[in-house]
């Protein structure tokens, strides 16, 4: 069995909430991230027999993987709580 497969509820049983998720989005968001070194996957696997200009692919990827956390933050913006925009006053339109 595919470990990613799930059993879907037929449409006929979801007609009353067809546009909504079956779990509230807030609950779905509650998912702590696990802190692991970004090159761990590469380290844990036998390297593939692929070379680029005689350099093993793994040797090219590992330093780049290590920089991924900062790369994601730089490109897509850090979501640190301090960066959250101010909510303003209680009655925005007043």
């Amino acid at each position: 069995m595919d470990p990613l497969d799930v059993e879907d509820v037929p449409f006929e049983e979801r007609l009353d909430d067809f546009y909504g998720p079956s779990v509230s989005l807030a609950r779905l968001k509650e998912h702590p991230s696990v802190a692991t070194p970004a090159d761990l996957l590469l380290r844990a696997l036998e390297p593939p027999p692929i070379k680029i200009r005689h350099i093993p692919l793994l040797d090219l990827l590992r330093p780049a993987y290590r920089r991924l956390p900062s790369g994601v933050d730089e490109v897509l913006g850090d979501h640190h709580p301090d960066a959250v925009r101010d909510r303003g006053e209680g009655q925005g339109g007043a």
Partner: protein
Amino acid sequence: MVTRVLHAIWAESRLALWAEDSTLPLTTHSRADVRDHPFALPASAVPKLAPPKVTAYKAAEPAVPVRSAVLLLPSSGRGPAPSPELGVDVTVRNPRVARWRVPIMPYAPGELDAIPGPSVRYFGIVGDFARDLVRRGRILPWLTEDEARWRPVLTGVDAARFRELAVAMPPVCRAVQEEGRSSEVLLGALTELVDQVARRAFPDKLIGAYRPGRKSALADRWLLALTDPEPRLDEVDEAEAAGLRTALAAWFEAARGLGGPVRVDFRLVEPGADDKWRVEFGLRSAEDPDVRIAAEDVWAGAEFAATPEPQKTLAGGLRRAVRLYPDLDWALRVPHPARLSMDTRGAFAFLRHAAPLLEAAGYGVRLPSWAGRTRLGLKMTTRSRPGPPNLGLREVVDFRMDLAVGDQVIDEAELAELARLKVPLVRVRGEWVELDDRQLKAALRAVEERRVTELTVGDVIREVVLGGADELPLVEVDADGLLGDLLSGETERRLRPVPTPATLDGALRPYQERGLAWLGFLSGLGLGGILADDMGLGKTITTLALLLAEREDAQPAATLLVCPMSLINNWQKEAARFAPSLRLYIHHGGARRRDEELAATIGAADLVITTYGTALRDLPALARQGWERVVCDEAQAIKNSAARQAQAVRQIRARTKLALTGTPVENHLAELWSIMEFCNPGLLGPARAFRTRYQEPIELRRDENAMRALRRATGPFVLRRLKTDKTIISDLPDKQEMKVWCTLTPEQARLYQAVVAEMMGRIENSDGIERRGNVLATMTRLKQVCNHPAHLLKDGSRLDGRSGKLARLEELAEEIIEEGDKALVFTQYAEFGTMLQPYLEARLDRPVLWLHGGLSKRRRDELVERFQGDDEPMIFLLSLKAAGVGLNLTAANHVIHVDRWWNPAVENQATDRAFRIGQTRNVQVRKFICVGTLEERVDEMIERKLALADSVVGGGEDWLADLSADQLRELFRLSPEAVR
């Protein structure tokens, strides 16, 4: 203003959007098998969208032509059922699935002025997951037919997360052409999002300045395309591509194999008589870590249910693990390795370095129970000196700092001996302790630096807040006297309660008297505090009592209270009710005082109330005054320390500060720092240090030591009582009724006055039944205005920021949800409920159920069952007419009447849906009233009963039709305080 709702779908093997438009007809006469969706945003509107910006590589594509997709949607015979977010008051009874063609556009949710439907927000969460996978490097490159792409590696917790997201997927996401499979749609979408993120997060080139040409080896060009905006490769030689694909596929399969049902297991065992540590090997089930088999048994031929070939699994796993734990190679030099023996240094290296890596990579790791727990720390002892107590922060106390290992205190000589041994795992009085070089140095430094024998109370508090150092945290504090009270974190319970001030027009409950004592205690020391009691426990009355108490035998300067605009009227009303002797000045609005006049007014006031916005605008003038205290109500408004209004209130100096918030601040650490920085500037140190010391360990690793240290550091300054505390429950009435005073926005006020002007003319020019009808119509329209302009106008316009009531409802709903509670929200208008439901659900991201007369009995039962049975915090919107009687909704402990029928019996019946047999908690009931409008006046009339018999009032609103024109004019009049 047009309401459009965006929906996200998986169409043509990529993410796409389509939109509903409420201005279009909801039905069609077509009877075709596949019909054009009558209110889908038409193709002619789609090209007006800006080009998608989702990814660099997509932007490089030629403009995407408008396409269409056929969707399976719930429908009536004449049209699709509108999504709830569209806010159209249409109920489709017995919907069935039908096919509708909709124009689709590229996935760029921010590009269209439309409400993002739940499916769009759902894919936002999928996007967060994609980003997290890339950040953690859980991706591998691959080669499709002719494109260089990244794809996620989903094993272990990531596979579980994937399944969680797949199960939650809104059906509409997978409704293209046929009932799609959610796991397939999600995998496609996630792969697309992962590729987008990775392509941008990696450096431009993975191999220096090398730029392969068109004739270069495929692998060279493939590598370049992995980070290039254009993933496509030209002139792919199939033989070359097949070789590359095979190697990449094997790599990917090996990665997926790391998350299989069986894990190779490593167990660290303490040394026996031979003084040798051992890492013992074995296999264990991924599902149940207790199902384990030792390597010896595997080699002896024992079976293991989770794998048909245990020996092969063990051998392969051990071989792969060498890459993360190179010392393991020593053990693998024998044919059937079962363990690796090592000295103390080796054991320490396994503990600190190899074990976390192996565990993160999916191997089983079992360590002794003491491992990972920082056992070495500082213990502080202070003793007060004889003499007059309560000298405040300058009082000198005897001080001593010791080193603690677990529950033991060790002296300097023992520490020196540990340093001499230079081994990172030592046994101290029978307990193993991890003690690396950094900690040893920190311990020696701490002893050196803290040889003093006395400190002031202020310095001791700073030591506690500092919490030692990263390597050597403060783990225990033993203090007596006033300092002991303060640092105990239970000051409120240790202090003698302050009796209700004589000038308070009301009685404090026992826990409020304890709160008052705590506020007075901190204030006396010149310290700021955060009163973070659960909502409904009386933070307002306790604060007012503090102001009254300190005026019993002194005349301190005024207190400045800063609050959101939506709360000004509440403060004004509560102060007038409970503390009429306080001289109050509202500093807000165009007519507010300035310059000398302001100074004189403040000089003659006890309490000055202003908003965060006004505080920011009038900062120079307000900062010049001499304040006794600055209070920030709804202090989450200053949670962002960099925001201008947070900086503004911090700049207003006062002898002491107080923050009021119902939000559990311990769950929001950046917010806690910002609020504490307002209350006691500098006490928690710089934000960066706070993040390193507390926020990151707690938020990223749930570090219990850091949590304990933070509680110790902030405990003295935060008072939070829960309404579920046993001692609080006994103080509270079973049902608390409160009025919530709301203001109108300027738009609401204009509409209100226009309705009054128009309808009074009609009333005066009519009589009999017609007049009666006009009066009741006026009442209805004015109540609609008080609810929301869009409720009166029925134009499908946006809801955000246009109604004081809605703003207050949002704030309350957020607090209720944050506290983990459930609420019933009653309205007498079904159309208002239909507007509120999708709006609140989108704001809260929590279920907002909506029960009205248009639902079938089956659907009503389902909603009630979900509300009662699901433990998730949620809101239940109910039509007063459809749900006022009969239902059992005891899962709610909050009831809100957002508009009023002015019939106490009907309202009480509705309230009793929650407040009835089966209710085990105190119920808080809130009735919304717009101040300065007919809502306030009718409420007053009912309260005072104004010579009207109960039976008349009990009849609803009909009696109002008999009032004279002058009485009606007075009733409908809009007072200046209605608008803030």
